[in-house]
Structure formats: C-alpha cells, structure tokens
C-alpha cells in the first residue's frame, strides 16, 4: 500500500510565472490541487495613503506605477475623476491624443500578456515577437512624452505635451504594420494543436459566477456577457468611433485568449479612425485654475483598462489634496476567482489559469 500525504507547495513570491510578486500557497494531493490561497501584499506601497498628502498633479506619477503595463489608463482615470468633479472641459485635440495613447497602451498591454502567457505555457518565440512590436509602441511613447513606461503624460484638463512633428504619421505606419503582424501571430499560435489542447476547456466558469465575483474586462467577456465600459458607459470620445466588442462563449482560457487578441484588432480599428479624424490643430490643455481644488464632494469614475474596470473614487473636502482616494483595481478583484478555478484542477494547469486572468501585481497591491 502506498502512503500518500498532502503536499504544501509554495509558488513563491519570486517566480517567473506569477507575473510579479504573488505567492500562491497550494495544497496538493498528488497532482490534484485541493486548496489554494493567494497571498498578496508584497508590492504594497501605500499609494492611497500617500495620496492624502499630495495634490492631484503630484499623484499622477504615482498612478503610473500602479498598473505599470498600462500606465496611460491609470493616468486617465485620475484626471477624468478630477475633471468630472470640477467640470473642466478638455479640448478636442487633447481628447484625441488621450484616446490614441490609451488604445496604443491597450495594444501594448495585450501584447505583453500574449507574449508572457505563451511563454508560461511553453512557447518561447511569441514572447520575442510580442516584445518586438511593443518596443515600437514604447518608442512612440518615448518620442511623445519622454518615458517608456511611466509616462506622467496626462494632466487634469488635458495632456502635457502636444505630439511632436511626424508622430502621427509614425503611428499610422505602425497601425498598418501591426494589422498584418496580428494575422501572422494568429497563424503562428492560434491554430497550433498543442496550444489548443492546453487551453481549451481549462479554467471555465459561467457568466453568473463572473458577475458574482465582480470580474471585468476580458475575464467577464469570455463568458458571453457583452459589457465593455467603452461602449456601455462611454468616456473620452469613444462614442464617436465604431468598433465591436469581442465576446467569448465558454469562459475558458481559450476564450480569454481569443477575446484579448481580438481586442487588439479592434483597438487598431479605433486607432485608424482616430488618426483619420485627428484635428490638425488645437489646444492640449483646457482652462484649469492654477490651484486644482475640486469642490467638496465625492465621485466614482471607471474606465476600461486592458485588465478590466479600473475605478477611481475620490472624496474631496475642497482642498488641493484628496481626503480619500481609492482605486478600484481590476487585477485585485479578478484575482479572487483563482481559488475557485484551481481547486480540483491538475497542477499542470495552475500557471495556465493564473496567466489567463492577466494580473499585474503593481495593481493588485496598489
């Protein structure tokens, strides 16, 4: 008779596949997972507490560092919240710049996800392809605002810089190029039988579970719920462009993959339209009082970041600093479903499912 014991496996904070410092304490019975407990907080930097002593313009660099793979959307959610409270109108050209930059950021973030997800599964070359294209996007951002990852680009009332000479043409060239490369990537991966065997049917959940757990973004749309904040609660100038919302059916890892890669395609579509309609001249900053002091009150705004619904809840007492600033981070909420998905699964699927949720630890811990 073989004696079996339960094994406690620590998928530790330092691990190449946990996408950051995430610790998952897993109890295994052979190869079947019986109990999962994610432990987070290794990257907690106290942004919300710090924000209570900084004025809004100073908080913007901190928002960059929360979800560092999609910093533009973080910048935007803070500026949007303050502009909503103060009733500031943002000029047209600034809105276009913001939209272009946010969609480019969405493509960059999904490329990182795509590359690292496939790397986790075992395919080594898509990672390099994805980062090659992402490098082009980062180069564009470098020319626009001087940094490759932590942009500090948006300001309350507009954007900091106008696009330099020739930048719009470079973006147009990139968009055209990226379309054909996306088809190549589909050729490379999406039909691959090994890949399909690894992701189809894994980590499935239904729409009711997704809504109960408050999932958002691709995690929600893979179950068939057509909910995208760019369409359902339009912000910025998204209502001027037409694009589709890719929706999955089964709620498994393959559907999440499909939804995200299709989102890249739709982002390219939005970018094409935005670049065509780009106003040739205009202000980049609206009329903002010198001291940004929103009136006393509170506001909760939410936008669609590449990971889901990022929200910013500000309680202001009329001062230059927020009284309470809370970010509703999508990765933090999405990660809650991990125990439910993993219990009963084979251990080999742990990394596949964890990667499919698309978390960024900077956001989970804030």
């Amino acid at each position, binding site marked *: 008779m073989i004696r079996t014991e339960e094994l406690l496996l620590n998928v530790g904070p330092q691990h190449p596949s946990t996408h950051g410092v995430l610790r998952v304490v897993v109890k295994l019975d052979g190869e079947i997972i019986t109990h999962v407990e994610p432990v987070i907080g290794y990257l907690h930097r106290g942004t919300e507490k710090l924000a209570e002593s*900084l004025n809004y313009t100073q908080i913007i660099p901190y928002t960059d560092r929360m979800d560092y793979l999609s910093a533009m959307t973080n910048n935007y959610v803070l500026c949007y919240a303050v502009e909503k409270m103060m009733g500031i109108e943002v000029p047209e050209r600034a809105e276009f710049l913001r939209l272009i930059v946010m969609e480019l950021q969405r493509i960059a973030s999904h490329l990182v996800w795509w590359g690292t997800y496939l790397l986790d599964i075992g395919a080594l*070359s898509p990672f390099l392809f994805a980062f090659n294209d992402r490098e082009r996007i980062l180069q564009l951002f470098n020319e*626009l605002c*001087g940094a490759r990852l932590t942009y500090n680009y948006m300001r309350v009332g507009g954007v900091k810089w106008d696009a*330099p000479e020739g930048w719009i043409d470079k973006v147009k060239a990139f968009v055209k190029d990226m379309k054909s490369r996306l088809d190549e990537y589909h050729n*490379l991966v999406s*039909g691959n039988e090994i890949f*399909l065997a690894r992701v189809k049917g894994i980590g499935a959940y239904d729409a009711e579970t997704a809504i109960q757990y408050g999932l958002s973004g691709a995690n929600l749309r893979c179950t068939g719920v057509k909910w995208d904040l760019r369409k359902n609660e339009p912000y910025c100038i998204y209502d001027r462009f037409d694009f589709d919302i890719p929706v999955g059916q089964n709620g498994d890892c393959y559907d999440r993959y499909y939804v995200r890669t299709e989102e890249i395609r739709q982002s390219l579509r939005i970018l094409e339209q935005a670049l065509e309609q780009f106003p040739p001249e205009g202000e980049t900053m609206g009329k903002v009082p010198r001291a940004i002091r929103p009136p006393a009150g509170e506001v909760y705004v939410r936008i669609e970041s590449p990971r889901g619904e990022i929200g910013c809840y500000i309680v202001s007492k009329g001062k230059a600093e927020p009284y309470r600033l809370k970010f509703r981070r999508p990765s933090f909420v999405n990660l809650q479903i991990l125990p439910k998905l993993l219990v009963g699964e084979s251990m080999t699927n742990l990394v596949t499912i964890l990667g499919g949720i698309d978390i960024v630890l900077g956001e989970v811990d804030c």
Partner: protein
Amino acid sequence: MIGMMKGLGVTLKTLGTRKSTYKYPDEPIVMPDRFRGIQHFDPDKCIVCFQCARICPTQCITMSGKPNPDPEKKGRVIDTYDINFEICILCDLCTEVCPTEAIVMTNNFELAAYSRDELFKDRVWLQENNTNVRKDNNNIGAPKGGAK
C-alpha cells in the same frame, strides 16, 4: 498538424527579416529629445522660488537661497541645491513649473553608481551635467525661452 505547419511557416519567414535588437552598450542608444533623464541645473537662472521643491511628488529636492551678494540687485540667489537621486522618479514636474527654466532635464540615463553616496546629486554636479540637455521643455510656468 496544419496549425503547427502554419506556425513553422511564420518562424521561417521571420528568419529572413531584419534584426531588431540593439548592440547596446557598444552602440549608444540615442533617445528622442523629450526623454526625461537626470536634470541639469543652471544656478544663474534660479530665482529661489521653491516651486520645484514644492511640486516634487517624492520631496527629493532640497534647496536654500541666500541674499544676492550684489547689494544693488534684489532677490536671492541659490546657495545649495540637492536632488536625492535615490528618490527622484524623473517625473519631470520640477522642470514643468520652473518659471525660469533653471532646471531642465537632459537625455542622460546612464547613472549607475557603485555607492549610494554618489546618488545624492548636488548643485555642482547638476550644473556640470550639461550634455544632451533637452530642448523641448514644454514649460508651463515660464514664457518661451525662460524668463530673465
């Protein structure tokens, strides 16, 4: 099998494309003009208004002024100006609010040091760091070209 064949086709096609890697550090990387590197400080332009120290999100700038040694001129001149580079996040807010463009960013980013002491940049170092100074500053606090 078809899927894998298609994938192999893409891989083989990529064999013939141009390399996209840089041979850094043998070839230096040229950053675009707007790149936010370590700052350059010009003490003659500074009017000691403390805007940069006040806006810094991490409070890494410490400065002090002294009365102008020339008894006829009013105002103050800068005495000490330090940037604690361990905390500086290169966010560029200090250059944005400086009314005289006394502090500007350069494109220098190769700042690794062997000891933490070298990371505390003082006024002399910042003044001497005048290579690759950024031209496009988009400074909201100053009129074009810096006030006099």
